[in-house]
Structure formats: structure tokens, C-alpha cells
């Protein structure tokens, strides 16, 4: 889902950077001294969790977890994912410096959207099945929306990317299912053990 350096057109890069700047500013406004260490440590946790490779069919993929990230961090997902993606570009060569804005928006905007859509349903410790369903929907939809945003960025950079977009989208369908199930069970677990994390 990371778009690599050198592919997107300059206006798309600038637009992505602008959207991420706005989202990050909104996220930082909510980052009081009280919440700063919490969000930073949870951001570190999501960075570590995204190193996990999950078998999908004959292949494997690393987790994205932007749905769970949104459910736990809300708007703070923007600055937290910005930091994570900067580190991933720097240390592993995923994405890059100029695509940081686009890539952050592609993952953080779905995270915030899923928190808004499914946050209430996940805050229901008495009904774990509902929490599983809402968590699974958030996990799958966050990947799907991320894929859609990535596809849009590529499409706006040139019509000639359409076959590449189709290949990327197809590759993400199994990931979406796995992410949905994993996020659903993680949310179910949290609702039983530590419901305040989903509040």
C-alpha cells in the first residue's frame, strides 16, 4: 500500500502533503501533554505490530492495522502514522520522503473514518459479538479505503496506471479479509480485557 518514490505527479504529491498536514494539525491539537506519551507508545506498538507477517494463501503480507489504529487513537492516528511511515521509509525503504504525505493520508484518513463509523459499536463491552463485527468491519474497510485512496492518487497521476491499480487492488482483497478478521478478534479481546482502550 506504500506508494513508492518517483511515480506520482507533483500536484498529487503536494495535495497529499497538504491533506496530511491538515490531518496532523487536527491530531496534534488533541495531543495534550497527558495524551502525548500514550499516543507515542501506542504508535510505537502499531509500528512493531506492522512488522508481523501473516500468511495469506500461499504468500504472506505484513499487517497494516490502520483500522485498529483508528479505533484506539482516533484523530491522533494522523500524527502517529506520519511518524511510523517516516520511520518505515527511512529504515526499510517502504514508501519515501516525497510520498510521505500521500501515504500517510491514504492510511490515516481511513483510520479516522473507521473510528467515526465503528467507534461507538466497539465501545460495547457487554456485547462482544457486536464488537467483533464492528472491529472486523473497521479492519477490512480501513484497508479497502486505503486502497481506494492509493488508487485515486495513482489515477490522478496518469491514466496509464489503470492496470497497475487493478493489480494492486486485486492483491489487497485477501489482505482486507485477513485484516478484518484479525482486527475483529483483537477488538473482541480488548472489549473483554481492556474496554477503555476502545473508548
Amino acid at each position, binding site marked *: 500500500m506504500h506508494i513508492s518514490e518517483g511515480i506520482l505527479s507533483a500536484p498529487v504529491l503536494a495535495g497529499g502533503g497538504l491533506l496530511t498536514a491538515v490531518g496532523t494539525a487536527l491530531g*496534534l491539537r488533541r495531543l495534550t501533554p497527558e495524551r502525548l506519551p500514550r499516543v*507515542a507508545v501506542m504508535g510505537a*506498538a502499531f509500528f512493531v505490530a506492522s512488522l508481523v507477517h501473516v500468511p495469506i494463501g500461499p504468500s504472506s503480507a505484513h499487517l497494516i492495522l490502520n483500522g485498529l489504529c483508528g479505533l484506539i487513537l482516533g484523530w491522533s492516528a494522523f500524527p502517529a502514522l506520519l511518524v511510523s511511515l517516516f520511520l518505515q521509509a527511512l*529504515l526499510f525503504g517502504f514508501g519515501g520522503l516525497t510520498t510521505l504525505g500521500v501515504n500517510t493520508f491514504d492510511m490515516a484518513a481511513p483510520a479516522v473514518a473507521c473510528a467515526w463509523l465503528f467507534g461507538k459499536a466497539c465501545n460495547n463491552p457487554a456485547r462482544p459479538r457486536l464488537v467483533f463485527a464492528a472491529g472486523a468491519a473497521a479492519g477490512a474497510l480501513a484497508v479497502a479505503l486505503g486502497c481506494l485512496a492509493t488508487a485515486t492518487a495513482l489515477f490522478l497521476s496518469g491514466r496509464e496506471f489503470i492496470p497497475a491499480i487493478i493489480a494492486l487492488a486485486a492483491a489487497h482483497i485477501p489482505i482486507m479479509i485477513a485484516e478484518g478478521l484479525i482486527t475483529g478478534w483483537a477488538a*473482541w479481546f480488548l472489549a473483554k480485557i481492556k474496554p477503555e482502550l476502545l473508548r
Partner: protein
Amino acid sequence: MTCLAAIGSNSAVSRIDPRVRFLTALWLAACTAVVRNPPAVGFALAAGLALVAAARIPPHRVIRRLVPLNIFMLLVLLTLPWTVPGRPLLNIGPAVLTAEGLQRALLLAARGNALMLMMIALLGTMEVTDIAHALSRLHLPARLVGLFIITIRYIEVLHHHEFDRLARAMKSRSFRPRADLHTYRSYGYLLGMFMVRSFERAERILRAMKSRGFDGRLPALEAPPLRPADIAFAVSTAFAGIIMLGGVLP
């Protein structure tokens, strides 16, 4: 420090002030990302290679960091030549491989690799904590820099002391990841427990920080002044960027 380790380097590039290196990386990246004519992209690629050479980074480290980029580029190289209209080079049934498409795909691949090489040379050789302090001295929002500093501090801690312990415990109970529901459920619980442990650790960290008077600010250490070599490097990369942009402007 394992996954956060910088590429060890003792060279002319790694001695440049972190602030200067960060700003020149941004400037060169911005210039390279907008150029689209072959000479300018070639120049950018040469600049990237020169920087990597000057930073004396072992080639296998460079190649490893270029892998994810080039996997994506492979997709571009396989599809673009068939979708960009232009002079046909090869016909396979209804599919037409065009010279323009091939040129554009190669151009994108060269530009991407140039950008990555510059980042590896300028930022990859810096410890992440040095980058954090450089960002703080460049007056990025204090909350963002604080978030960055605490995140990089705890990635290793959470990885080794929380995640690996949980993963080892699963392994010792003969868990083998497969592509099935049992695996996904186990991973869901693993991540849930990992989030709980991380959250509890975050609470302890917050209490420890508050007891030491944390008020949202993390003061940066005094920065050494810029040396003439830093300024010379900044000026020469500024020129390199202008030369690249000269190819775009009429």
C-alpha cells in the same frame, strides 16, 4: 538497537550537520520529484549515486533498501509500456508496446531510485535520535517532535520486552502460523494482548514523566554551530537542485 539502527558511516556526508542534511534531503527530493525530462532525471540519479558513494555505504545495504521500491517499479515497468499511447515497438495480439511507454516507465524507475539513493545517503546514515533533534531545532511543532522522540524510544522496548515475549510464548505452545482462521484468531488475540501491555506500559511511562515535571515539552540539547563545510554542502546541493529544475523551466 536492531531495527532502528542507522547505516554506520564515517564519511564526509555523515559529518555534515543533521539539520543541513535534513533540509538538503528535502530540497533535493522536492526538485527530483518534479523533474520529468530525461537529462534532469539522469542528473538526479548521478547525484544520488555520488551521494551514496561519498557516504561510503556498503553496496549491499543500499541494495536492500532499494528492494521495496523496485518491486513496485517492476509493476510499473510491466504495465506502463502497454498503456501509454505512442509509436508501437511490438505487437502481441491486441496489446501494443510503445516506445513512449517504455521511456516513461524507465524514467519513473530512474527517478524513484534517485530519490531513494539521496534519502539513504543523507538520512539513512543518521541515527533516528539525531534526526529527531534536527527536527526540533528546525522548529517543527514541539508536539510532533515529542511524539517522534517517544515513539522511537519505545519501538525497541515494546518489540523486545512485550511483543517478542508474547510471540515466544505462542511458539512454545507449538503455534505455527498458517493461512487459516485459527491463525487469524490467534494473531488477533496476540495483537489485543500486545496493545493491552503497551497501553499499561504507556500509563507507567506517563506517570514517570509526570513525576519528573513533564509539561509537554522535551528540551533539545544545545546544537553545535554550523561549520564552513556544512554551509558549503548546503550551497552546492542548492545549486544541484537549481540545475535539475533548469531542465523543467523554459
